């Protein structure tokens, strides 16, 4: 009697177990599909016959594989230059932001510094307010940073959130390490350079990735500050292509207007240009991201502990 009762309970539990497992898997699989499919869809279309892809016939696998889209894309005016600008701002901006976050994160732990707490608060307070985009824009204009490449760099050098991350990390490093170096007569900068920098590398990797993704994705500053097409970034150019891709296809297609089926399959359409540029812009993120996911997660964990 008792035996069958417990058996019944077990049955119920395992039934419940199974339902929870099934619900979890189904919902997350659907969610993952919704997140993944758009990327996949655009990717297969950029490699498929353009006349088919324009009619929406390419849905699940590549039809009429060709690579001409990626060859023709070089002819799209301004694209190569935009790639250079985006790469330059990502590399230069990230380097300066990471170096600054490391240095200030360390300096703000130096209890010997004159009025240390005041300066730290002055920097961290900027996380909680901003003057608004128009006053910021007027400031940038007054400083001569509109239509200027350095307008992408200077405002981002001191990033309070990254400084807080670095400071938290430096504080977790045993104090004895610094003290020993100090007894040996090492100065403030030398301790930073020779002791701290090698030790805090994990957090610097996290900050570097956050910062690089932000620089690569940045769109608003171009919109506000830049009218000179030579300084347009890849994001900005992509936005322009989406809104005016129809006029671009004429520029890219060669003058010979043969209408054979083979030519139709590789002639550029508004859709093909849009999709191919999208793949080009998204590729760095897609490739870099899975490798660095653990750094991202580590970063927010530290942030979470702090918050």
């Amino acid at each position, binding site marked *: 009697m008792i035996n069958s009762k417990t058996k019944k*309970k077990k049955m*119920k*539990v395992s039934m*419940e177990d199974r339902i*929870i*497992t099934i619900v*979890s898997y189904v919902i*997350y699989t659907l*969610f*993952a599909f*919704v*997140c993944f*499919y*758009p990327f996949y*869809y*655009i990717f297969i279309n950029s490699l498929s016959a353009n006349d088919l892809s324009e009619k*929406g016939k390419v849905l699940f696998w590549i039809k009429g594989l060709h690579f001409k889209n990626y060859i023709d894309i070089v002819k799209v005016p301004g694209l190569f230059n935009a790639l250079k600008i985006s790469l330059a701002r990502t590399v230069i901006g990230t380097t300066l932001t990471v170096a600054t976050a490391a*240095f*200030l994160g360390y*300096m703000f732990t*130096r209890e*010997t*510094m*004159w009025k240390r707490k005041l*300066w730290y608060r002055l*920097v961290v307070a900027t996380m*909680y*307010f*901003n*003057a*608004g*985009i*128009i*006053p*910021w824009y*007027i*400031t940038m204009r007054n400083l001569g940073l509109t239509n200027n490449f350095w307008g992408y760099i*200077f*405002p981002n050098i*001191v990033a309070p959130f990254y400084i807080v991350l670095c400071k938290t990390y430096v504080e977790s490093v045993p104090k004895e390490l610094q003290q020993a170096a100090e007894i040996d007569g090492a100065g403030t900068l030398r301790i930073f350079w020779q002791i701290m920098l090698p030790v805090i590398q994990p957090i610097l990797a996290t900050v570097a990735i956050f910062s690089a993704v932000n620089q*690569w*994705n*940045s*769109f*608003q500053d171009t919109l506000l500050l830049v009218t000179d097409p030579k300084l347009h970034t890849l*994001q900005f150019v*992509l*936005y322009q292509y*989406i809104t005016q891709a129809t006029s671009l296809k004429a520029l890219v297609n060669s003058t010979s207007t043969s209408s054979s089926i083979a030519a139709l399959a590789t002639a550029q359409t508004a*859709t093909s240009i*849009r999709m191919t540029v*999208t793949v080009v812009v*998204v590729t760095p*993120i897609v490739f870099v*991201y899975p490798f660095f*996911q653990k750094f991202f*997660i580590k970063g927010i*964990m530290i942030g*979470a502990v702090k*918050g």
Partner: protein
Amino acid sequence: MKVKDRKKARSYMEFLYIVPFLILVLLFSYYPLYGWVYAFFDYKPPFPLSADRFVGFKWFKSIVDSPTKISQILKVLRNTFAMSGLSLLFSWVPMALAILLNEIKQKTYRRIVQTVTTLPNFISWVLVYSIAFNVLSSTGAVNSILMNLGLIDTPIMFLQSSKHVWFRMWLWLTWKNAGWAAIMYIAALSGIDEEMNEAARIDGASRIQIIWHITLPSLMPTYFVLVMLNLANFLSNGMEQYYVFQNSFNKEYIQVLDLYVYNIAMGNGGYSLSVAISILKSIVSLVLLCVTNALSKLVRGEGFI
């Protein structure tokens, strides 16, 4: 004495090292606050401020000085409240996703879905828009699939429509952020003592009971902080998402405060009016931040500032 002098010299020296960075902070974060004075002048862009007329609170009054302007600002506020309200209303979605993810025990599968669902968080709004454009256009994937299935005869114009704009903007926001937000909760979950779960299981607790009595309560502090932050940012939706998605069809419903401030300045040259609205927004936001921070102190014993 000498030692003391050297110590003092060092403390000033250390300050000198960070001076260049402090200057950058002053220039790019504090100096723009001075730009608020433009709200009190009749600012015409090419001329310097000294050449402009001081007008006092004219611009502040002009926000509400005619019925059309009142209805305009009310529309913008309605959109802002709708977008932020939807986010707040559904703020539990990432937490629910985290609980589900936590129930997926197969490690490889879990890592794959985790990677895939967090990816959209790291692409820009321009890319999101590009994806939306490609997938939702009249020959895009969604319309093609629906037509192949025979569910519709003519393509649905998803992006060129004024219907359900708020909800669709919320969907895109969720598509972009929910996976990543779920990971935040997973970080909080990894702190749960595995022994507690084990003890509950031995006591005969079912999985639902464990979720309800152990997992959920341990996520609540994180949830509370995120809701408070959401409230503090109620007026700040940011402009990028709405800027890229805006068109003549949905303009009535998509223009939130941040986008409105941009549009009247950059579109119509109304710099002074735009700054006036920014100032009001900043004041309300500051009040919200203080209130939510105080609330957090009351409930959790610590604030988030």
